[in-house]
């Protein structure tokens, strides 16, 4: 790393630290100014398993791509500003928060840990995610959670068209509206939507909200720091008519 990295006393970097040990108002954080340090240098430092730094603050992200990709350490990282494509891609561990918007491919293929965006996210947020939690306080765009494989996604606003397309496992919570063709060809992922659904995709149907689903949803909302009432949501999932090829379903493929 270069000399622009400095340690400084900061307030709790995320404000909602969970599960990664105590972070107090007197904890120190390493501040990386992306106006002076390259994303490559930042990511190399974040990947350095020998680096003892737990708390990171990233300033002047200026919409750059690939920030904080592939974090595999229990760190807490805060970004002040908007980030570009593939922020926190392949995220393995730790908690990252963006105070701003995120570009395409937010937390793509996240494995575990937590990625939180206070603003909007562009297309394909949490695509192919295997685990962990992705929270978008604003709107997510088209194809949110496409091919999700176990990730949990909580969106405070709306999601765009083709969200949860081919979603195989995990949970998606949408506190606003969902665009066209929600859950097209969904497998076993569970989708909860509070607002309007423009249309359901092929083989996606509304399902009853049983007690176990209300409990699951309540837990997801709390973990995302939200206070919506689970009773206001509807559940959608697979009708399981596309699991095996059947010539009667040819039109649906």
């Amino acid at each position, binding site marked *: 790393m270069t000399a622009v990295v400095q340690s400084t006393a900061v307030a709790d970097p995320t404000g909602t630290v969970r599960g990664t040990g105590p972070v107090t108002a007197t904890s120190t954080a390493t501040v990386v100014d992306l106006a002076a340090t390259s994303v490559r240098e930042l990511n190399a430092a974040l990947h350095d398993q020998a680096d003892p730094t737990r708390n990171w603050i990233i300033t002047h992200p200026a919409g750059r*791509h690939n920030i904080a990709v592939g974090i595999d350490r229990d760190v807490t990282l805060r970004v002040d500003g908007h980030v570009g494509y593939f922020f926190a891609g392949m995220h393995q561990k730790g908690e990252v928060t963006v105070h701003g918007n995120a570009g395409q491919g937010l937390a793509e293929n996240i494995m575990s840990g937590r990625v939180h965006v206070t603003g909007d996210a562009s*297309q394909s947020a949490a695509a192919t995610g295997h685990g962990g939690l992705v929270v978008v306080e604003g709107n997510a765009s088209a194809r949110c959670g496409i091919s999700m494989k176990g990730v949990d996604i909580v969106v405070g606003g709306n999601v765009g*068209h083709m969200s949860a397309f081919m979603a195989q496992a995990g949970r998606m919570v949408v506190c606003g509206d969902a665009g066209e063709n929600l859950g097209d060809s969904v497998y076993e992922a569970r989708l909860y939507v509070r607002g309007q659904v423009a249309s359901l995709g092929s083989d996606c149907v509304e399902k009853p909200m049983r007690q176990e689903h209300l409990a699951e949803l309540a837990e997801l909302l709390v973990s995302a720091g939200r206070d919506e009432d689970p009773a206001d949501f509807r559940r959608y999932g697979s009708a399981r008519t596309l699991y095996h090829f059947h010539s009667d379903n040819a039109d649906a493929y």
Partner: protein
Amino acid sequence: MCGIAALQITNPALRPQLGSLLNTMLCEVIERGPDSAGIAVYDNPALTDPDTTVLSLLGGEQALSPAGLASALERELPEAEVTVEVLGDTTFVSGQASSTELTAALETVLPGRDIIGRGRHVAVMKGVGNPRDVAEHHGLTSMTGTRGVAHTRMATESAVTAAGSHPFSVADDLCLVHNGSFSNHATIRRDLERQGVVFDSDNDSEVAARYLATRLTAGEELESALEHLGTVFDGFYTLVVTTRDGMAVVRDPISCKPAVVAVTDDWVAMASEFRALADLPGIDHAHVFEPEPGRVYTWRA
């Protein structure tokens, strides 16, 4: 991939900075299309005058010297007070005549020239090579103006030539830039050609520009013309259209191509990616959003 950067300034105090701001935006989207570039600047007093029509010609070097071209055009249009100015890779021909008259005179004097811009408010500049160099050759950073649009091209549907660069300006003070590709442009081109529309290039985006110009010339409003375009053109696109008094943005109905808009009291800006907007003054307090698929957004100056 292509990169788009467009800026419309609403606070007159910022107009002297149009060129430098647009240049900064352009440089952030070079990676999206490093093969060629085009720039349009509206209401730059050094290049356009509301009392005079300006044609932007491809190429700084013409078969006639600037003085020779001016006097040859004067013979065709004795009342027009024609002037010719070369800036970088572009030649600007100005005269007190309509763009149709000026174009006809130019066709007589120098047949087969590529006219890349026309009107009383817009100057269009294009070139092949790194967009940073194209902008520098034309002195973009020192330009003042009301709005501007820059495009970095990654050629898909036609060759890497300056003529194939965006923006496409095929009617007075109208510019269109495109990121994406149209799959049925040949069909629409044939339909337009049957109506008598003449094309300058093989470029698919020119078809969109000609289609739009045809509808606007027939008296249609910009919003509805762009909505119609969405029903006729098949493909994926983000389009930015600039006019004498405004700017429009529209994405295809499945929003295949990126677009980010930022709005403040002082300006409205659109780019393919946020990073192009990151250095605009007041961006920290701007309303930043992604245009919804298929919806036409317009901002009047």
